[in-house]
């Protein structure tokens, strides 16, 4: 159970709930430095919740989540819908905001930083777009801008939430090349993805979620038919009548109410195999 000391992100029995219904249920394991991991699972399986917890947008129980990096060394790309596209800002300023972590509200942009912005725009194939307004871009172009900002952020841990959604094949290929480049530079990359074939082709590690941990390790070992079937069997609806989970309950209470409280809630009980796989230390 004790997480690897050299891990970039270590999860120890992490549970995150919305109104007491767990979106992530007792997840343990760790992301090694320089690893390239795909997070897969059906809708509502807690993939985005996991990323948000790592970034600190959702509170985690003390000790359940350890990130071995300062906040400015972490870059997070949320799903595209979270950005105000009508805002009057041009592409160059938007990418320059990637320097926010290092220069804050008052640091100068400087020639070196502007050169980094130009290089990043070149790397994503958006030369000549510097003065275009963000609102005039297509979805794919905007995603390229977001990747340019990630390049400028120069982070050691990069979290991508469905980065290739609504993006065409050409743009996906270009952005995937950047992900591979980051992997080559020993950065840790965690990406939420829906395309299993893309994951098999490009991501060495996979974390398969269905609120509980279904599998975590080498992609070929995790994305098996049996695992995918188990993930798909996840009940999407909250069970309003579910009992209280007893894993974290203090011992005396557990002993006193052991019979009244279902060990893992109704849903887990119907699938006892998955209820405890969450506690295994992943490969």
């Amino acid at each position: 159970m004790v997480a690897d000391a050299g891990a970039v992100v270590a999860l120890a029995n992490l549970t995150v709930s919305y109104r007491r219904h767990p979106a992530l249920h007792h997840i343990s394991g760790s992301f090694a430095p320089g690893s390239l991991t795909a997070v897969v699972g059906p809708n509502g399986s807690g993939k985005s919740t996991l990323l948000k917890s790592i970034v600190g947008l959702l509170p985690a129980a003390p000790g359940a989540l350890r990130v071995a990096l300062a906040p400015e060394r972490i870059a997070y790309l949320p799903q595209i819908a979270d950005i105000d596209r009508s805002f009057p800002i041009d592409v160059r300023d938007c990418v320059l905001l990637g320097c926010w972590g290092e220069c804050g509200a008052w640091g100068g942009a400087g020639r070196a930083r502007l050169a980094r912005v130009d290089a990043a725009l070149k790397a994503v194939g958006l030369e000549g777009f510097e003065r275009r307004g963000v609102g005039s871009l297509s979805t794919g172009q905007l995603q390229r801008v977001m990747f340019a900002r990630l390049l400028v952020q120069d982070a050691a841990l990069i979290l991508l939430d469905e980065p290739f959604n609504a993006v065409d094949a050409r743009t996906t290929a270009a952005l995937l090349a950047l992900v591979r480049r980051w992997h080559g530079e020993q950065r840790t990359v965690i990406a939420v993805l829906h395309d299993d074939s893309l994951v098999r082709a490009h991501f060495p590690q996979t974390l398969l979620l269905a609120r509980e941990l279904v599998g975590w390790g080498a992609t070929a070992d995790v994305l098996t038919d049996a695992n995918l079937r188990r993930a798909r069997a996840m009940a999407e609806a909250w069970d309003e009548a579910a009992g209280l989970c007893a894993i974290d309950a203090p011992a005396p209470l557990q002993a006193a109410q052991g019979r009244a409280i279902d060990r893992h809630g109704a849903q887990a009980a119907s699938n006892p195999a998955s209820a405890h796989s969450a506690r295994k230390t992943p490969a």
Partner: protein
Amino acid sequence: MTGLAAWLWDTALSPFAEFAFMRRALVATLALSLSAAPLGVFLTLRRMSLLGDALSHAVLPGVAIGFMLGGLSLTAMALGGVLAGMAVAALAGLVTRFTALKEDASLAAIYLMALALGVTLISGHGTQLDLLHILFGSALGVDRPGLLMVAGVASVSVVLLAAMYRGLVLESFDPVFLAASRRCGWLWQQGFLMLVVVNLVAGFQTLGTLMAVGLMMLPAVSSRLWHDTLAAQLLNASAQAMLASVAGLLLSYHLDTPSGPTIIGCAGALYMVSLLVAPGGWLPRVLRRRHRLA
């Protein structure tokens, strides 16, 4: 030629040259244009155009308590107004942070409570006339301390807005990015709301709390029709507010109308013109100019 010069002098310059109260009103409204209109642009960008209106009501209980304690003293009423406005903004911020309510909902709830409190206090301790004065103000009644307050507030808030510019842009454009960087993102929001409160209170003697919102929002809304970049929108908003101030003061002098509403009326006229002819307005759509090849 001399006839035209004389006409210009009579209509546009002599009111200011002859009367000190007109000069003070002019300086006060120009200073306010410089600081309040850019704040309005940020409010529209954050889709909080109606927030100024809410906050202008929220200062009322403070103004009333200031009036009860210090009489018709500008300092007491202004101080009370600022404190009340900041308390409402801070309370709403706390509610937003620690409950499921969004910013607009929590602010609406709290400002309505503050407004009820303010009206109760005023009707218990003043006359109808006092309430009218507070709500609609009088630019022509600005005295020296009032002028100093407006000028001071405008200077400080322009400087603070410049200092907060990058944070505010980031917070409006991509709040999740700011929150992920964990640099106290909510501080920008709160600081910005404080600036809005201070500007509304600075405007309350000149224009009244309700009309002060007009100088903040009308030029801001119409400036967004003119430009695609933020810097241009900010400048345009200030310029329109200044134009409305000068025109409004002159009109109210010649037509003998109340100055505050006349100034806002002029800002409204500029807005109508912008609606018609600005690049984002109606006319360019009707003209249907031919498109380019690529």
